[in-house]
């Protein structure tokens, strides 16, 4: 069972180690001492300025390399290619008819050319 979800109304836990009021339960006094001991023994630690600047410079170099490696942004193409503007909105039946006519014209031209070559 995970007991970490149990509730408590401890003034020690509330205050982080400082006495919350003048009347502190005798049972809690030792916990206050423990909290104070923790505060005293765990002061915030700061990195040395040399380390901070060195790591900052290294991270900046890495960041720049990443940006250059990524290069220019790719243009994402749409899911479907758009129709050419003059044909956009034209009826499919009309398009088929025009295509058929162009095919017939082409065949006629090929036929005439072969006929001339023979004669």
């Amino acid at each position, binding site marked *: 069972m995970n*007991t*970490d*979800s*149990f*509730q*408590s*109304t*401890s003034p*020690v*836990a*509330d205050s*982080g*180690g400082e006495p919350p009021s003048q009347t502190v339960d005798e049972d809690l006094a*030792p*916990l206050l*001492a*423990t*909290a104070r*001991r*923790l*505060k005293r*023994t*765990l*002061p*915030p*630690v*700061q*990195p040395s300025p040399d*380390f*901070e600047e060195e*790591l*900052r410079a*290294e*991270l*900046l170099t*890495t*960041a*720049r390399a*990443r*940006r250059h490696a990524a290069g220019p942004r790719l243009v994402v193409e749409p899911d479907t290619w758009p129709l050419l503007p003059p044909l956009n909105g034209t009826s499919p039946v009309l398009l088929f008819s025009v295509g058929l006519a162009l095919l017939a014209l082409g065949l006629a031209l090929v036929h005439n050319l072969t006929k001339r070559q023979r004669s």
Partner: protein
Amino acid sequence: MTTPDADEALVRQAQADPEAFGVLYSKYLSLVYSYVYYRVSSIHDTEDLVARIFYQALAHLKDYRPKGLPFSAWLLRIAHNLVANWHRSQSRRRTFSLDDAFATADERVDVVAKAEAQEEQQVLRTVIADLSPRRQQLILLKYAEGMSNAQIGTIMGCSEGAVKALLHRTLLDLREALLAKGLRR
């Protein structure tokens, strides 16, 4: 710590331009450094781990999504995982640091008091190191970073009440452990 919203803007900026990551680095270096230091107890290892944490954060920044958690929580999760890996990779557990020894060896004033303080710190670190990772995180955020229960709850992903309850039980356990180690003051 600032609001998650303020961080979101900084993160979006850094996601668009990695060079802007420097702002986040400056803002959270001390937090990450302190968090790691109290879990590995050596300046050399701390610096190595902190560098790896920020490199990893930079590399995976594009994958970061707030999801209601602040950026600091995401950073500390990376820190937590790398520190856990580091502990696993150590053949033996170190509870005393040569860095500390050298730091106090140079100072000749009040040697006895310093030795006592150092001994107390050593015992306390040993006792904290025996806590579960979640409780270690709680103690460090509370006492090394001085965060409020609400801030800790945001980082650890639980309610302020749950933080309060966990802190109470952790202090009870720590007190027992300290008494067992002979620290009664």
